[in-house]
């Protein structure tokens, strides 16, 4: 039988969430089905929209310029509805690498990237990446050369951020869809960069 772990009672905030949800349902403000539906939509959303924007920007310099000037409009241009989102797109270059954090809570462009990873919301990431970004990026497996400036963006108020990574070498002639497949969630936060899939090693006999 599968080990389900020890029984753990709800903590303070879980209990508050359940109480509030049940009250809202009882009073007819929302229905259980509506909540389940919204959660399913949210869970199903990944970083595909952000990745599609990046792939388009790699292929179309005019789109890239519009995206850097106004991220929200650039999202809408591809048909992504982002009501209320104030998106700033920060561009990686050979001279500058960008990484995003929200030190005060966990602000994140969910409409484009989906639900943030647990580590993005964790205290160690939020407190450390602002003061020792090179070390933290190293722990993610990303070594940023000393001559490349690191720009840390604290998403602490009303704006939301997405990194526009650099297009990897060796992708000439690739389709937009294929390019988008290289753009991971972590590369849109700035703790990774897109890399080509490793070719399977051929065994020498």
């Amino acid at each position: 039988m599968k080990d389900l772990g020890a029984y753990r009672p709800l903590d303070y905030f879980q209990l508050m969430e359940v109480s509030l949800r049940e009250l809202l349902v009882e009073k007819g403000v929302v229905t259980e089905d509506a909540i389940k539906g919204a959660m399913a939509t949210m869970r199903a959303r990944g970083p595909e929209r952000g990745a599609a924007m990046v792939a388009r920007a790699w292929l179309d310099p005019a789109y890239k310029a519009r995206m850097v000037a106004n991220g929200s409009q650039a999202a809408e241009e591809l048909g992504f509805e982002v009501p209320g989102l104030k998106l700033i797109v920060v561009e990686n270059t050979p001279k500058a690498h960008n990484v995003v954090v929200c030190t005060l809570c966990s602000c994140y462009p969910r409409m484009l990237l989906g639900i943030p990873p647990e580590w993005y919301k964790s205290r160690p990431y939020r407190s450390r990446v602002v003061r020792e970004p090179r070390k933290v990026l190293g722990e993610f497996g990303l070594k940023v050369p000393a001559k490349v400036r690191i720009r840390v963006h604290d998403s602490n108020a009303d704006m939301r951020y997405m990194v526009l990574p650099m297009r990897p070498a060796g992708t000439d002639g690739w389709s937009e869809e294929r390019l988008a497949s290289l753009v991971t969630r972590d590369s849109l936060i700035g703790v990774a960069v897109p890399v080509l899939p490793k070719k399977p090693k051929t065994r020498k006999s």
Partner: protein
Amino acid sequence: MPDARFRPGDAVRVRKSAPLGHIRTPFYIRGHSGVVERVCGAFPNPEELAQQRDGLPAQPLYRVRFRQQDVWPDYRGSAADVIEVEIFQQWIE
């Protein structure tokens, strides 16, 4: 809305102050000097919103760029490294 008093490139300093309440100016950046990177527009004041008020007039919001070596005396990394933080106008002096 109050006019944006600062423009990109202006040198600014974040107030060093610790009032109570919901404040979106991180502690680590209070008292530090930087340069306005861009003006983001105006947004309802979060300190008022948290008190169930309307947050109006909307306050200009800036992105301010700080040198990491200025913010953290023991910073290990390039002198060119920066941190960019959103600061409401009422926090700038």
